[in-house]
């Protein structure tokens, strides 16, 4: 059973990773990256790696999106 869960998580991670690369607009990409981070955390949890899953959630859900969105706000403001 756990192997099936890992397989699902692997497919989710591979698909969302590709989606992150293919979405060229950085704003939408930030959200897809959040989804990709969640997939990674789910994969790590399914592989019994609690510590790494927690730090992936924390980095992927809090640190990375916050910084990417703030950078986008600065870059977008600079353009007007």
């Amino acid at each position: 059973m756990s192997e099936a869960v890992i397989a699902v998580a692997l497919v989710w991670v591979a698909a969302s990773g590709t989606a992150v690369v293919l979405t060229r607009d950085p704003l939408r990409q930030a959200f897809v990256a959040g989804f990709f981070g969640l997939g990674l955390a789910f994969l790590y949890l399914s592989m019994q790696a609690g510590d790494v899953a927690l730090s992936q959630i924390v980095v992927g859900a809090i640190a990375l999106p916050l910084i990417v969105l703030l950078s986008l706000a600065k870059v977008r403001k600079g353009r007007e």
Partner: protein
Amino acid sequence: MSRRARLVFFAVAAAGLAVTLGVGLAGLPSFGSQLTAYARMLNELASPQRHVTDVVSAITFDYRGIDTLFEEFILLAAVAGISVLLRPLSDESRQLPEDKAPNRKIPPPSPAVWLLAVLLSSLLTLIGLETITHGVLTPGGGFQAGVILASAIYVIYLGTNYATVERFQPDPLLEASDGVGAFGYVVIGLLGLLAGDVFLSNVVGLGVTGNLIAGGTIPLLNLVVGVEVAGGFAILASEFLDQTAVIRTERR
């Protein structure tokens, strides 16, 4: 190279790298079939020797403690680098944040949102502190808790405005916590040296397995790393926020 030439060249190179990775990955033992002797030994030894239940924190803070010391300084260097890179330069100035700018009338945050922000922020702080203290027992620990504590500050910004959050994160305090956290890790390591043993060796009583305060120096290191990471990520977020909200470059 032109973009097309680069794409063709990349396709060939990526095919080569794919074959290389394929050959390497094919040599690995099949997925989930192998547990190395080193891992089996540590899984058995960690709990009786270090009186901790979470083997991963025993490995990160004791068996391979010097790795984590350098990992903390990677974070310290990154945060110091970012605050150096994003500092206001001579042709830039700190002006009124956007929500206070004269030509923009932004309604003050409604009390309901402000209350939600306070509740959420205190909840996150509790979760952060709990993650630090339980780092010895369950998955979690200094780094994860530090980021959660830093996010507790930024929930206030989401709920209110820039001026309010500025009060909650004075720069001297954040820099001090960042520096003290990293320095604390070194001091705890030096305890072993001062006691005549080697660097990072455990000189603090081990306590009873399963208790919150058990595992000798591991809870202390967890706490110190939590302080450093909280200060570090708070500085990180405040630098990016300052760049967005406050710092303007005079158009030459």
